[in-house]
């Protein structure tokens, strides 16, 4: 008599997410390295000087932009990395289908983005402490989280969703590349063609620039990421394992 274990998609995905979080925990070091790089580059990231009454006034604004850009690059890389063979095959040593594996990847990347987003946001404080002890210049009061909690939260949320979308870009590129090298280069050519026609710029303007509020931008970005992940899932459906 056979006793087949029934296992629901949800529980497989949850187990996979848990497993992947442990398995990819080593990425923390890359994250730290890039955030530290971000801090180093942040000092005077946007520095402006103006002269008035023969007085030059320089204002060094240390913002999280540089950290965010570094971490965005990491997000793209990680999104790409987990589509590579070694990572993909690991899933199939355990219970997995391509659907569960993709959903789990998508969730894991979101969790990573949350962690990366929040920590990147807070690196500004590391920077503050660092500069407080290392700079003889006077400090200008800067807004803290407490000054405008809603805006701070929104910034964090926006960072998270943007990182997630970046990881989805890496993910779809990786999936395409794994699936069919030709398809990957084909897509690349199409994208470059789109870029050259200017339609793309218009589209991205509509999506990313012409927003009445940050929240709408976040919502749109979220939708795009979901769309990209869904496409990747559809593409990866025919990917073989251990071939």
């Amino acid at each position, binding site marked *: 008599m056979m006793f087949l274990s029934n296992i629901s998609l949800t529980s497989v995905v949850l187990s996979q997410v848990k497993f992947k979080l442990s398995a990819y*925990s*080593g990425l*923390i*070091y*890359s994250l*730290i390295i*890039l955030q530290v790089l971000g801090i180093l580059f942040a000092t005077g990231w*946007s520095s*402006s000087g*103006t002269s*008035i*009454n*023969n*007085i*030059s*006034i*320089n*204002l*060094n*604004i*240390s*913002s*999280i932009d540089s950290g*965010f*850009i*570094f971490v965005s*690059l*990491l997000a*793209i890389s*990680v999104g*790409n*990395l987990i589509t590579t063979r070694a990572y993909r095959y690991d899933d199939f040593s355990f219970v997995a289908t391509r659907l569960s594996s993709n959903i789990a990847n998508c969730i894991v990347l979101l969790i990573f983005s949350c*962690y990366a987003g*929040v*920590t990147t*946001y807070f*690196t*500004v*404080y590391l*920077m*503050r*402490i660092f*500069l*407080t002890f290392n700079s003889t*210049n*006077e*400090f*200008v*009061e*800067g807004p*803290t*989280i*407490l000054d405008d909690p809603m*805006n701070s939260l929104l*910034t964090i949320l*926006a960072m998270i969703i943007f990182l997630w979308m970046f990881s989805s870009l890496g993910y779809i590129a990786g999936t395409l590349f794994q699936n069919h090298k030709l398809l990957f280069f084909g897509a690349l050519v199409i994208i470059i063609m789109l870029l050259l026609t200017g339609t793309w*710029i218009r589209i991205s303007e509509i999506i990313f620039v012409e*927003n009445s509020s*940050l929240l709408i*931008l976040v919502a749109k970005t979220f939708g795009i990421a979901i769309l990209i992940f869904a496409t990747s899932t559809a593409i990866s459906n025919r990917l073989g394992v251990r071939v």
Partner: protein
Amino acid sequence: MSNTWMIFFIGLIPVVIGILIVLYITKKVKYKGSLRLNKIVIMIYFSLLIGVGIVYEIIPKEPIVEQLSEEQLQQLQTENEVFEEKLLKQEENKLSQKFLKEEWTHELSGNTLTLGYIGNDSYSTKVVVEWIDSTAQKIEGKVYRSHINLYGLKIEDKIPLHVAEWTGNELVIHEPVEQEFTFEQFSNELNVFQQTDTMEIRMVRGFTYIHLKVPKHIEIVDPLGLQMY
């Protein structure tokens, strides 16, 4: 290919290089640690950052330069405009006295008054002349300076004044000695998300106004065009 595209592609190159470098780093970080260690590092790093945030909020800080809000800057701008308008209309009694920096009188020895300026930026000084009915040689002068503000920094006190000095019949306006101030600021906001261009310098340009009450028979020589009508 248009300029925008050139810029776009040149901008794309560092992004691609960046991705490659980061990919390289991610793959090269050979030390993956053990799961236990990684978990500890993840927790510690997170609490460290949050902790630093809290510590930063509670530690006593160096004197901090206040920053004015957009509305406050607007208000300064308006005050400046009102001042200039009234000055030009010769409504001296309605002038805001907080701009008054100096007051003096001077006995002119001849019938000419020369306006001189030492410095690079003579546009920062405006001379307004009010002709008075008098036969005396006495000139009354008042030096005003309107609000100056850069980036909303409340540092007006730090910006030195122009000094007007008499050498014989010449009124020489000295620009302050060149000085440089650097300030550090932190931003919790991401500039990339700013829907409006914030890189535009927030500035309230202030001027040094020299209000002279000059008897009508005196001729003013103004080679630099400091006088405002």
